[in-house]
């Protein structure tokens, strides 16, 4: 019976996970005319792509750190509020809106005739080019990832036994010491999940970078898009994809929890 129940999931895994990844790996060893080759890998390890990789990591790192710095205090505050579920809902609602819509909204806000510049103008400041910069890219990415970071952190903070916090005060710890010595270490699992859920997609953001950052930000995501849609070099695109998967596996391993490793 159990095996029968597992069949649809197995099928799903084969069709939507195993086959596509196999195809991708296969394509990554093909050149543009379909001959088997290691050329793509050699090219990836050349300076151009390595620079792009570093760039991707750097932006993903910045996005993750800033998202974390905003989300942790936010999750902490929400966990102390009376109507936590309501406030959490407020944070979550934006995730129901299509990411493309949100991005266009930001274009409206940050554009040269957008809200921010209008305000600047009214108070006598000069208009500045906000869009098509790495500032805009990071701002929008952070905005998009905040709910995904807040949720796991909130859950782990909310799950901490209240008596542990009392015990910390009881033993003489101040609020700050309680935060750093008890609450933070005990919410680390949530922080790790939040980092995974932010860092990994942030590595391969391409639509955002196209729409908000123009050509200022070149990441692995934009490289894949470029290879598939413009150069039509599926082999090279797949190779970048393979490396992206490897990086993700690496990040997952680096942030995995103790219990999983046992």
């Amino acid at each position: 019976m159990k095996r029968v129940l597992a069949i649809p999931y197995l099928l799903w895994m084969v069709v939507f996970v195993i086959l596509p990844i196999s195809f991708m790996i296969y394509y990554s060893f093909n050149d543009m005319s379909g001959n088997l080759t290691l050329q793509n890998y050699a090219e990836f390890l050349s300076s151009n792509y390595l620079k792009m990789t570093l760039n991707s990591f750097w932006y993903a790192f910045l996005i993750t750190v800033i998202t974390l710095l905003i989300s942790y205090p936010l999750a902490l505050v929400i966990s102390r509020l009376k109507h936590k579920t309501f406030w959490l809902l407020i944070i979550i609602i934006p995730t129901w809106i299509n990411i493309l819509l949100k991005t266009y909204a930001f274009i409206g806000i940050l554009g040269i005739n957008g809200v921010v510049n209008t305000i600047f103008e009214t108070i006598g400041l000069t208009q500045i080019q906000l869009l098509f910069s790495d500032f805009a890219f990071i701002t929008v990415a952070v905005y998009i990832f905040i709910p995904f970071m807040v949720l796991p952190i909130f859950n782990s903070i909310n799950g901490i036994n209240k008596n542990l916090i009392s015990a910390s005060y009881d033993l003489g710890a101040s609020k700050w010491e309680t935060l750093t010595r008890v609450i933070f270490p005990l919410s680390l699992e949530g922080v790790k999940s939040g980092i995974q859920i932010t860092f990994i997609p942030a590595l391969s953001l391409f639509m955002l970078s196209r729409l908000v950052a123009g050509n200022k930000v070149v990441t692995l995501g934009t490289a894949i898009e470029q290879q598939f849609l413009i150069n039509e070099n599926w082999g090279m695109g797949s190779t970048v994809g393979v490396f992206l998967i490897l990086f993700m596996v690496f990040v997952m391993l680096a942030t995995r929890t103790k219990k999983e490793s046992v």
Partner: protein
Amino acid sequence: MTEIRLQNIHQYFDDAHILKNIDFTFSEGKFYTILGPSGCGKTTLLKIIGGFVNPTSGDLYFGDKKMNDIPANKRQVNTVFQDYALFPHLNVYENVAFGLKIKKVSKSERDERIKEALRFTNLTDFKERDIESLSGGQKQRVAIARAIVNEPDILLLDESLSALDHNLRVEMQYELKELQQKLGITFIFVTHDQEEALALSDEILVMDRGHIVQAGSPKDIYDEPLNRYVADFIGESNIVEGEMLEDGKVSIYGRAYECVDGGVKRGTPVEVMVRPEDIILKPAGEGHLNVTVDSILFRGVHYEICVLDEDGYEWVIHTTQRSEEGKKVSIYFDKENMHIMVPGEKEEEFNERLESYEGIL
């Protein structure tokens, strides 16, 4: 040095009146137990002393110092929580070290004090262990070690033994009592277990719905309960309606008995309590009341025998004497073992009354 004084403490949570005018002084170095059913406010009282709850009104003093606005982390009080509240991300040693690290105690002194606390609680071999790998009794001891290593003036214990199985609980009771005597600091222990309260305490506070009903030594409370509530809560009891005839004489079911209580107006309706273990079975006709044995339960240390008297009232007896169901016997109790309670009497009136005829009757 550190006497704890509660003055007219009231506590409301929303509309619920949890503590009603609590007025009590804990003197230093004694083992106190706050005893009461769940919801009587005993844990709230403990939290007020610990600094986790701010009383709605009334004052809390440690010695001469008013403590109302002093936060928990600035009080010389440590708590052993009901669920122990050990930090799961730290091992035994680090848990015990927590308070000392916060207080920036030097490494050498810290090591010394932790070693001592672990030795005190028989945990020396466990110091590197993870909290999760410990048994209930070991966790309990870590919680105690973590508290006493800070050398508090007052140790609060919140239902700290209730999660343990019976044998371990009895063992921990001995250890706690011994610990308190060695440390010489004030222990305030909260429990709903009357046996525990009797075994451990220098003084018991019996609470009911936000009031301290009666406070006194275990023996006082057991032998001279203020009212039916205390008598029932501490131990088992036979309580019968009576009427005071004069000092030293009470009538029960129309029969006059000699007793050792007085100070009550003639004709006052009273309740007479006799503990089940104070009743002696005698052959029919030789005791106070002729009864028929209704049921017998073997309890291990004693038999619990239910008898019905001629008026149909039930008496419970704890005895090692054997009997049989349906047998006609009689029951007898010494006048010293009859305790007269006046319904509605306040603790102060009760104590005055006891003092008024002490040594006279």
